């Protein structure tokens, strides 16, 4: 076993009986115990429950029953997914005494039904309001590629756990970019699905009109498989060659030279130099920003009345500002959303896949968490999603893919498509991965990969 086995390899080993699910889960638990402090990604580990679930898988294997395509595969979830018998903290100290969940989130049920084993919950920005996974209560999650840098957020624990090789599969949520940003900074594959494609039932909401959930993996094949299980989409047939363009304008401004060069290289490999403008992307980002603030503020208003001082101050102040945003402005943003989505739909009459950076640059340093925008230093926590927020408003499926550059800090690129064209998107991504244009690279861990395996 290595830290970087795919979940296909793990499930195959369990089904063949070359390793039991219990043995595999025990190795994962031991690994987390030894290495989690380095990254601070797991907030809780369900040791007894995961061993018990593994034994159920092993009994199925022994009885000749189908244990599922994810037999014995360990996975973790951002701590905003309901887990039966546990409190959903949403990364907040003030929720540590909230009632325990009565049942698992729908997506957890789907992974468990496929034979996967839930190992634990993962760190996040409080109430998912941030792009950094800097949490006043649970601490900061460190990027496995450079422990002095941010893992991104708000699903930073989910990304770091996969990048570090602790588990091969995790779930996060993406309202404004909270899967895509940490996937990019940690060198992983992650998807924000189309609105409604993967159920959000059983997750702690943030801004419900924009909330989605999605998986993190180390390969495009695993991402496609996880997406199919989570969305319960039918098997995909063959698909035609996509028409591809890069997004210009807003998506070309403020990107570092190395990010721009990565997109140049991808476009060169695809044999096209088509550039398309996404109309008013900057306004779309603003609309997304306002809708998030207003919905988040409204959601938390009652709790803010009585427990405001128990919030992370940075989150509290953003929510309070959102709570008093005039309704007229919120409605204006909603009207803009309707207009923008129609415009995006028309873009996909010309193209199938649109490419853009995920973040403007590589992971910022934790202690210098600012980025440059239009010549000014601004907060990374609030602005790492400048390229993800407009696509959130569009409600379309978007994969953040790792540009292949081993031994260097990861760069992520967004590949967006129209709802219903996911098969075409995954096929192209797989081809680019095979060609080593896109590919996840293991982090330069300062220990032997099999030290604890």
């Amino acid at each position: 076993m290595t830290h970087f086995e795919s979940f296909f390899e793990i499930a195959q080993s369990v089904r063949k009986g070359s390793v039991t699910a219990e043995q595999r889960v025990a190795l994962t638990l031991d690994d987390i115990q030894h290495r989690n402090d380095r990254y601070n990604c797991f907030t809780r580990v369900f040791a007894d429950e995961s061993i018990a679930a593994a034994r159920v898988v092993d009994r199925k294997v022994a009885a000749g029953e189908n244990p599922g395509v994810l037999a014995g595969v360990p996975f973790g979830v951002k701590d905003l997914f309901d887990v039966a018998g546990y409190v959903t903290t949403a990364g907040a100290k003030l929720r540590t005494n909230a009632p325990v969940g009565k049942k698992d989130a729908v997506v957890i049920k789907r992974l468990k039904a496929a034979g996967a084993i839930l190992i634990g919950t993962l760190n996040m920005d409080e109430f998912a309001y941030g792009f950094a996974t800097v949490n006043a209560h649970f601490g900061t999650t460190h990027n496995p590629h450079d422990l002095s840098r941010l893992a991104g957020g708000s699903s930073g624990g989910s990304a770091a756990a996969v990048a570090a090789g602790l588990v091969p599969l995790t779930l996060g949520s993406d309202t404004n970019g909270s899967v895509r940003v940490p996937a990019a900074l940690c060198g992983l594959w992650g998807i924000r699905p189309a609105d409604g494609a993967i159920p959000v039932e059983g997750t702690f909401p943030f801004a419900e009109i924009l909330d989605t959930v999605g998986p993190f993996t180390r390969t495009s094949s695993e991402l496609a498989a996880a997406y199919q299980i989570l969305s319960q989409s039918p098997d995909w047939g063959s698909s035609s060659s996509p028409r591809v363009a890069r997004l210009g304008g807003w998506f070309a401004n403020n990107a570092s030279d190395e990010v721009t060069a990565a997109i140049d290289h991808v476009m060169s490999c695809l044999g096209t130099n088509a550039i398309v403008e996404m109309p008013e992307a900057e306004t779309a980002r603003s609309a997304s920003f306002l809708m998030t603030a207003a919905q988040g503020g409204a959601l938390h208003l009652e709790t803010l009345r009585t427990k405001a001082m128990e919030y992370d101050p940075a989150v509290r102040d953003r929510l309070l500002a959102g709570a008093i945003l005039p309704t007229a402005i919120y409605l204006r943003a909603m009207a803009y959303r309707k207009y923008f989505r129609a415009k995006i739909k028309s873009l996909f009459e010309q193209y199938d896949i649109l490419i853009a950076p995920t973040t403007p640059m590589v992971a910022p340093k934790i202690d210098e968490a600012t980025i440059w925008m239009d010549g000014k230093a601004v907060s990374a926590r609030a602005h790492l999603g400048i390229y993800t927020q407009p696509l959130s408003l569009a409600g379309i499926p978007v994969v953040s893919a790792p540009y292949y550059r081993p031994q260097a800090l990861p760069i992520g690129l967004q590949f967006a498509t129209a709802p219903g064209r996911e098969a075409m998107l995954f096929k192209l991504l797989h081809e680019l991965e095979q060609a080593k244009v896109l590919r996840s690279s293991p982090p330069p861990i300062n220990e032997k990969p099999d030290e604890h395996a």
Partner: protein
Amino acid sequence: MPDDNITTEHFEILKLLDLELPEACKAGIRTNLEILRIHARKVEAFCIPESESSEGCDS
């Protein structure tokens, strides 16, 4: 100062919502209100063509 007036008005609104907050919160809320105002201006400045929305520029 217009900004001070706006901030004061916003804190009056917070009181209407039964949100009484210590002085220490005010700077953070004010900073975030200013960020929201920048975004609001961008959205408000955008005229959605009447042919594409019942909202129109003047509605």
